[in-house]
């Protein structure tokens, strides 16, 4: 049995039946990381020893039998944006190269409380700013997928949770945490042929997760199946008094929702997502998804989200504005990198020039600009108004439908070096994912098939606020219909 091929759901059973030990399960993934991380660069920090220790403790608990916590012995990757107690947390930035937090984020603490084993901290775009995982100070991540007949070209895994997506796709971890600000879970999930959900804003606590754009950031799981995502989100989600924006409502049984019948479910197809110049294969995958859901008993309804076209422009005002303020704390005074200067201003300038990469600096500049006196009303205030209209769009649509179906991204994974000279081209990768982020509603990417070049394509299911259950139900149906069994060229069992 290839332990690295198992789903989390299957591994839970195998561990409890003692078909294999947690040490064996974690060991198989640690070995895969040893072999492949040098190439994929999916992890910034590998914690093999701690993971194997934790696995042995998990085995002791499993040996005791009885009611064992859900994730006992399950090896996970943790995006290096979640602060982990005693384990270096970098945000993929030189600024935090040696930062070891003395605290554990709420989301990872929840996973640990449920018995999960962390095999390492996954790579990402610096401070989660990027769509290709090429802005990391620790080097780019390679997508484990290859174009058909082209073993050479290195493809990007998407971003910003590119390390998590690559690790899960290449079987270096059974699942991983991601964070999604404008598509950072869904787009890399789509590029790497795995599932990933951005839950409703407020569903997972942001406490202890390094902030990019506070009003948009939301943690979520990435795994190879929809059900595995449901299992992980069950553990990650929940109200936290330490995060004023987390919401105090019960977390339902997500795993049960995966098996729910779709009979009578209304699925909206937003007209505005048929953007000009969308590749035919993306269009085709979308049509296929519509047909699958119709076959599963859904009623397909055309809907309109007229403000969608302003989503990206609005996002690139709101997110940089918040980031420019959130990243002010990296000043070299109390923690992280410090480059000395003759005066306080020089210390700031030298530290931030050396500590931040080009994309982070670009966004801080944009954000500072749009918040400046004289520009605030024209940019930030107007963007907030448009954001409310986008939110209204979704509310209106959800008056008549239960979920929306769209493509996740306008293309499959592209090659490193492509789209890199023009930041705006890069930002367009998020055109389908950003509106749900702006509205705060849950959205999930699920693999639907392969492009003509043999690369995975994802479909996106968007649901009502706090109705992740319908999202899981629809995504599960798509997953079953797609029968996506393709695997990437680079993966654990391929030597």
């Amino acid at each position, binding site marked *: 049995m290839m332990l690295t091929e198992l789903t989390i759901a299957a591994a839970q059973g195998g561990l409890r039946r003692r078909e294999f030990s947690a040490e064996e399960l974690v060991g198989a993934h640690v070995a895969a990381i040893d072999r492949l991380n040098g190439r994929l660069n999916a992890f910034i920090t590998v914690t093999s020893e701690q993971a194997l220790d934790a696995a042995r403790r998990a085995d002791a608990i499993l040996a005791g039998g009885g009611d064992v916590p859900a994730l006992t012995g399950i090896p996970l990757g943790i995006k290096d944006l979640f602060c982990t107690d005693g384990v270096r947390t970098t945000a993929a930035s030189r600024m935090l190269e040696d*930062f070891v937090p*003395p*605290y554990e984020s709420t989301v990872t603490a929840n996973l640990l409380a449920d018995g999960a084993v962390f095999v390492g901290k996954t790579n990402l775009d610096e401070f989660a700013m990027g769509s290709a995982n090429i802005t990391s100070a620790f080097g780019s991540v390679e997508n484990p997928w290859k174009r058909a007949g082209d073993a050479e070209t290195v493809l990007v895994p998407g971003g910003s949770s590119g390390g998590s997506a690559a690790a899960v796709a290449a079987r270096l971890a059974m699942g991983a945490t991601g964070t999604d600000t404008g598509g950072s879970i869904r787009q890399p999930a789509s590029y790497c042929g795995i599932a990933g959900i951005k839950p409703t804003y407020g569903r997972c606590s942001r406490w202890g997760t*390094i902030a990019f754009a506070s009003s948009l950031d939301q943690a979520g799981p990435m795994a190879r199946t929809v059900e595995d995502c449901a299992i992980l989100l069950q553990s990650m989600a929940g109200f936290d008094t330490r995060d004023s924006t987390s919401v105090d409502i019960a977390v339902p049984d997500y795993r049960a929702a995966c098996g729910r019948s779709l009979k009578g479910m209304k699925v909206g197809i937003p007209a505005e997502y048929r953007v000009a110049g969308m590749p035919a294969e993306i269009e085709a995958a979308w049509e296929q998804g519509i047909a699958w859901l119709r076959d599963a008993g859904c009623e397909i309804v055309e809907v309109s989200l007229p403000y969608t076209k302003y989503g990206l422009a609005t996002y690139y005002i709101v997110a940089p504005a918040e980031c420019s303020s959130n990243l*002010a704390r990296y000043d070299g005074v109390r*923690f992280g990198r410090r480059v000395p200067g003759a005066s306080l201003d020089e210390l700031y300038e030298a530290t931030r020039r050396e500590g931040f990469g080009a994309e982070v600096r670009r966004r801080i500049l944009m954000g500072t600009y749009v918040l400046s006196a004289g520009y605030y009303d024209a940019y930030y205030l107007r963007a907030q108004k448009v954001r409310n209209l986008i939110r209204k769009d979704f509310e209106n649509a959800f008056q008549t439908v239960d979920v929306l179906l769209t493509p996740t991204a306008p293309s499959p994974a592209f090659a490193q070096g492509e789209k890199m000279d023009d930041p705006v081209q890069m930002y367009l990768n998020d055109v389908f994912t950003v509106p749900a982020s702006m509205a705060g509603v849950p959205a999930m990417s699920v693999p639907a098939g392969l492009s003509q070049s043999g690369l995975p394509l994802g479909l996106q299911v968007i649901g009502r606020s706090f109705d992740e259950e319908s999202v899981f139900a629809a995504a599960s149906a798509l997953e079953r219909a797609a029968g996506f069994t393709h695997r990437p060229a680079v993966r654990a069992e391929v030597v």
Partner: protein
Amino acid sequence: MTYLIEGRDGPWELVVGLEVHAQVISQSKLFSGASASYGGEPNTHVSLVDAGFPGMLPVINRECVAQAVRTGLGLKARVNLESRFDRKNYFYADLPTGYQISQFTHPIIGEGAIEIELADGSTRMIGITRLHLEQDAGKSMHDQDPARSFIDLNRAGVALMEIVSEPDIRTPEEAGAYLRKLRMILRYLGTCDGNMEEGSMRADVNVSVRKAGEPFRTRCEIKNVNSIRYVMQAIEVEAVRQVEIWEGGGSVDQETRLFDPARSETRSLRSKEDAHDYRYFPDPDLLPLVIEEAWVQDLAAHLPELPDAKCQRFQDEYGIPRYDAGVLVAEQATADFYETVARGRDPRLAANWVIGDFFAALNRTGRTIQDSPISADALGGMLDLITDGTINGKIAKDVFEEMLESGESAAEIVERKGLRQVTDTGAIDAAVQAVLDKNPDKLAEYRSGKDKLFGFFVGQVMKAMAGKGNPALVNEALKKVL
């Protein structure tokens, strides 16, 4: 009273508005659980939130909100049931997150007013524009080391109320009266200790001048003035400076200035061009602050009696003059002390003693009412002895001094020293006779019409009786014999 600055071209009027930063009395900071208490070793009252660590989030402290609402109620101001927190962005080493969480567009408290009283007895209303909650910064220390600065974050994140007045103030005296009254109200409410030396209350002073009837001219803001006296001085010198500029044909630049009390001048800190662009925007880590009307009502119901109301009640209930009532309510502790003394006694006698000998004694011994050597009950006990005729007013002064010294009760002192007033008419008559016998010449003068000598005889008798004679009985006995 008009306060005019006589310029070369005629009189100029003064326009002043005050922004007071008042540190909220609370157990913990505005957005973290760290202690908000004053003092402590540097960087010992600091949570990860206060230090701005990655991923840390603010959570509003309910008690700080309650204190702001109480203050708003005390200022008779509008309480906004929905308010918001904004980020005020600027870089400084003692500002860990790079932004101060404040309330820019939607403060928790709206318009209110304070009535001030001036030396001539007149009163004026000074408008309150708003009160908002915000975080304090830490402290930079540049004098500990030749090359380095040190940062103490104990105060970083402590709750402040910024209380902004309308530009209604027209004289330095009014500014002083406003600050004293505001401080009195805050202390009564228990929402700020008003201690300007420790920095728990500081004022930014906005000053401009204009000719009568003109609209406002450009103002300058004098930052962080830390005593009422300095505020009044700063206003005076800044107004003169501005008048000189206008009359010299120049124009006043809007800028931030500092007051240097040693040189009695204000100096430019930064001009408008260098002014920070604070890039205010709503803090996305915090939801709008929504409070319930019922909660506000409950806080209002439990508000202590405030100085104006107490002053009126003292006049009505105790029949004491407005001036005396004003003196007694200046501090809550004094008012409480007075009420304890006055309860069940002659309230005017009580007021005279508290304001007179008692205050003088505190001044003389450098004590405060909190560590007064004579308790209110002890002072009351002494007044009882006066009222029931055990001692007279003159003896009472000696007894009071003795109480101050020994801490004994008045009754104990009277017993120990045998100071009980003599009401035995036989003894008084004997003393009277002895005095008359000793002073035949004076007696003759008196009888020939020199009435004024009556006082001389009273004095002699009292002296002969070591001051213990009952003055009324002594008078009576003398009149009878003379």
